[in-house]
């Protein structure tokens, strides 16, 4: 039944009609959504360049109500942030807006508010409440339609149980005897009060406040139980996390002297650098970087991540009573994004990045991992109704833009499309494969227009990054656009890409202008041998590192490519590494992953397009956003200058308002249009 449903969807997507670039690159119609606990309403947020619109759909009738709309008015506008259901009746929406604040101090000019909409009131004039106190909703109490838990920050952090109908109405002035929030932020409604700044409250399965992660009065990060509405014993205290505080002159002098002492010791070799291996780290200082993120069943038991490593690929179960630490899940995949627990408090699933995509690894009752399917389809369970009978699911594949469905048993009902303007896309065809290059197996994704005749021109479309980024097999706007315009598109997850293994990512170290380009070129040569590809019509186009690769491949292998399109591309690697925009840690990282400026200066020169323009034998299109704060626009000007000095052919287009990601829909559309026009002209 389900397969049949997706087939129907696929067929409905396959009627052909050319879709304009503006339609193609318009922002998703649904940027976030939330299903009410009984499944009656679905709230969706539409966030475009022009406006933000919060809609509520009656899932049974399909009737939509526009709950809240904000027109874009530049920097000072109000913005809708997160939203959640407080039971079945009320929807809470967090908004941020500008206020007068203090001249020139940006962070005094924004404030955030909660609005709460009553969906059971008259649909034409929905009752809207506003929370006037500062703080956040920490537990919506979804089984209770009237109440929610609200936390107020401060030197003493408090949680109150608040009744929605007693809050103040939006836009109504308070009468003389009326009190903010109905006077509910008082001792009578106070559930908990702790001395310290709370970061995260944990709740037991029955909804009661169980524990809190907070900065205590001594400035230390601590985890404590809550008993009788107050802090009970401290479960754990982290000495490694302390808030920044102003140091006295004496402390500063002492620190400087110690730093100097350490430097001298380092110079004479008395204090070599030490690394702590995992075993030592676990036994000696086991809780130092392990921070709880989810309450597990049982007393003082938490699921936790290890924040020591940069890449998180393990989940721990920490039992503070037994002082035990157990790894309950480990993946060789790239990274764990989040974890979920079942109603009985057991770890139920892990959302992770694997094989070039986001996958959910489901666990059985004993916590064992079930098989993760390698698929070009992404199907994720987003939420379930409180009775567990209806599920909100998200589905997308390389050929089908994302859409949301309500699934009740065998009954599937589509309730929203991410890109409704792309419902009539021509179906494309995808093939994936791996090419062995040395010790590495390099994955690639090749897509074609379905109804193609004869060999097709090929666009090699390398991703940006390059380290840690990857192309997935799911729906990709840029690739789809190029396929719809009649090109075969090749994407290569070259060495250094994320989404596979740590060692594959590390293989990209100092390979910017060598191994990575060789991977792309070798896969391209492999693909060019296919009868359905026209080997004489191949162009490379890319954004950011992809733009750099486009220029470099045209310079290094001029006989292989007929043109290149570099968008927001790096042209001078020296300029990138030495950029003052990066902080010291990023500067160090760049020297470790790209090149050391003192030791590898000659190599830096040899991998910079500006120094290789003499080798260019094909036309190049340069496009860049003037407001790019990742790859400065100077890169485009340098390349232009070098090309002019060498008398090479190029085309040039600057986007005045665009940053690195071409945030405006119209700029993105224009950029892709120019790319296609240029490629059509030259191949």
């Amino acid at each position, binding site marked *: 039944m389900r397969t049949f449903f997706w087939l129907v969807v696929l067929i409905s997507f396959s009627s052909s009609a050319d879709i304009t670039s503006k339609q193609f690159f318009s922002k998703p119609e649904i940027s976030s959504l939330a299903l009410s606990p009984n499944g009656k309403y679905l709230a969706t947020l539409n966030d475009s360049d022009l406006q933000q619109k919060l809609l509520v759909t009656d899932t049974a009738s399909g009737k939509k109500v526009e709950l809240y709309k904000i027109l874009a008015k530049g920097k000072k506008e109000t913005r809708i942030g997160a939203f959640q259901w407080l039971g079945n009746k009320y929807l809470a929406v967090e908004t941020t807006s500008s206020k007068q604040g203090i001249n*020139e101090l940006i962070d005094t000019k924004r404030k955030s508010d909660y609005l709460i909409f009553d969906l059971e009131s008259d649909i034409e004039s929905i009752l809207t409440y506003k929370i006037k106190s500062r703080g956040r909703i920490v537990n919506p109490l979804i089984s209770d339609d009237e109440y929610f838990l609200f936390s107020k920050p401060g030197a003493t952090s408090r949680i109150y149980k608040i009744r929605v109908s007693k809050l103040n109405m939006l836009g109504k002035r308070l009468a003389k005897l009326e009190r903010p929030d109905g006077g509910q932020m008082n001792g009578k409604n106070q559930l908990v009060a702790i001395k310290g700044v709370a970061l995260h409250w944990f709740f037991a399965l029955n909804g009661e406040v169980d524990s809190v992660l907070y900065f205590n009065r001594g400035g230390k990060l601590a985890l404590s139980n809550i008993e009788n509405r107050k802090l009970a014993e401290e479960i754990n205290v982290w000495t490694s996390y302390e808030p920044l505080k102003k140091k006295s002159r004496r402390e500063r002098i002492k620190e400087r002297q110690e730093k100097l002492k350490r430097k001298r010791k380092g110079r004479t070799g008395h204090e070599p650098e030490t690394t702590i291996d995992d075993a030592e780290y676990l036994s000696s200082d086991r809780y130092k970087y392990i921070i709880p993120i989810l309450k597990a069943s049982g007393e003082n038991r938490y699921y936790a991540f290890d924040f020591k490593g940069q890449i998180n690929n393990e989940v721990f179960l920490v039992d503070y009573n037994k002082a035990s630490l157990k790894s309950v899940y480990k993946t060789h995949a790239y990274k764990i994004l989040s974890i979920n627990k079942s109603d009985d408090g057991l770890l139920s699933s892990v959302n992770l990045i694997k094989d070039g995509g986001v996958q959910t690894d489901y666990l059985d009752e004993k916590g064992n991992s079930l098989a993760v399917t390698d698929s070009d389809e992404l199907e994720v369970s987003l939420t379930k109704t409180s009775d567990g009978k209806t599920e909100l699911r998200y589905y997308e594949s390389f050929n089908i833009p994302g859409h949301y469905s309500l699934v009740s048993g065998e009954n599937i009902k589509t309730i929203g499309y991410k890109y409704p303007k792309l419902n009539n896309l021509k179906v494309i065809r995808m093939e994936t494969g791996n090419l062995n290059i040395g010790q590495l197996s390099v994955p690639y994704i090749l897509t074609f227009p379905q109804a193609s005749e004869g060999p097709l021109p090929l666009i090699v479309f390398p991703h940006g990054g390059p380290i840690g980024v990857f192309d997935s097999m799911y729906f990709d706007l840029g690739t789809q656009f190029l396929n719809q315009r009649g090109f075969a598109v090749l994407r290569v997850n070259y060495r250094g890409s994320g989404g596979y293994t740590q060692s594959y990512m590390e293989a990209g170290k100092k390979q910017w202008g060598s191994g990575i380009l060789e991977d792309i070129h070798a896969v391209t040569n492999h693909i060019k041998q296919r009868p359905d590809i026209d080997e004489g019509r191949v162009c490379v186009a890319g954004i950011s590192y992809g733009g750099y690769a486009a220029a470099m491949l045209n310079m290094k292998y001029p006989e292989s490519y007929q043109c290149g399109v570099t968008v927001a591309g790096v042209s001078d690697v020296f300029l990138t590494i030495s*950029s*003052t925009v990066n902080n010291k840690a990023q500067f160090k990282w760049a020297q470790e992953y790209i090149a*050391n400026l003192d030791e590898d200066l000659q190599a830096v020169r040899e991998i*910079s397009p500006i120094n290789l323009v003499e080798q260019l034998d094909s036309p190049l299109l340069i496009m860049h956003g003037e407001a790019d704060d990742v790859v400065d626009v*100077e890169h485009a*000007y340098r390349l232009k200058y070098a090309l002019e000095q060498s008398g090479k052919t190029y085309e040039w287009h600057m986007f005045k308002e665009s940053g690195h990601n071409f945030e405006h829909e119209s700029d993105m559309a224009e950029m892709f249009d120019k790319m296609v026009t240029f490629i059509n002209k030259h191949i």
Partner: protein
Amino acid sequence: MLHFNKAYAEKVILAPAAEFKLPTNLKMNRYGLALIHIDVEGIAPSMEFFRLGTDIDEINGVRFNDKLHSGIRSKSYLIEFKGLPKGYYLFAIPTGTYQIDKVSAPYFNLPYIRTLEDDPRWRFRIYPRSFNYIGYLNIQKERSHNKIDVKWLNRLFKDLGDIEPILSQQDLQLPLKQSFGLYGDFDMENLKQKEGS
């Protein structure tokens, strides 16, 4: 690292590039002209820097990943940007390699200094008998409680279209040099032609 008082720093006066007049008694074998592009807002922004080395060999010998010897520093300089409109400015300064130490943007009692200490990317070189492009400095008027937004970028080739007509108005027949940071192969190679002019 020594921290110096502004009172001991020599104040550098910027002149709009188009109106710059070379001091008559300046020994050009020991001095160069620094060219800076500024886009600076705020109440009283300023920049402080000091000289790391004096002769040309030292200019070429400094490496990115070398640590500075603590406690050793020569004369310090201070540029105050208050009231200066956006544009290109020139000032004469002895040859050598310079380290930008601090950029300040005072705002009541909030922290207002970006300390660069010995960050090797915040350096510039001054060659004798030359126009030395030392970079584009941007300080935003709006800031947060804890942070001032300061950008110091090498935009020589973006700015070249503006710089060339301004410098051609000057009677001085001096070459333009890329002097931002420690070195930049591309800049040096491609500006040779201009240096020869």
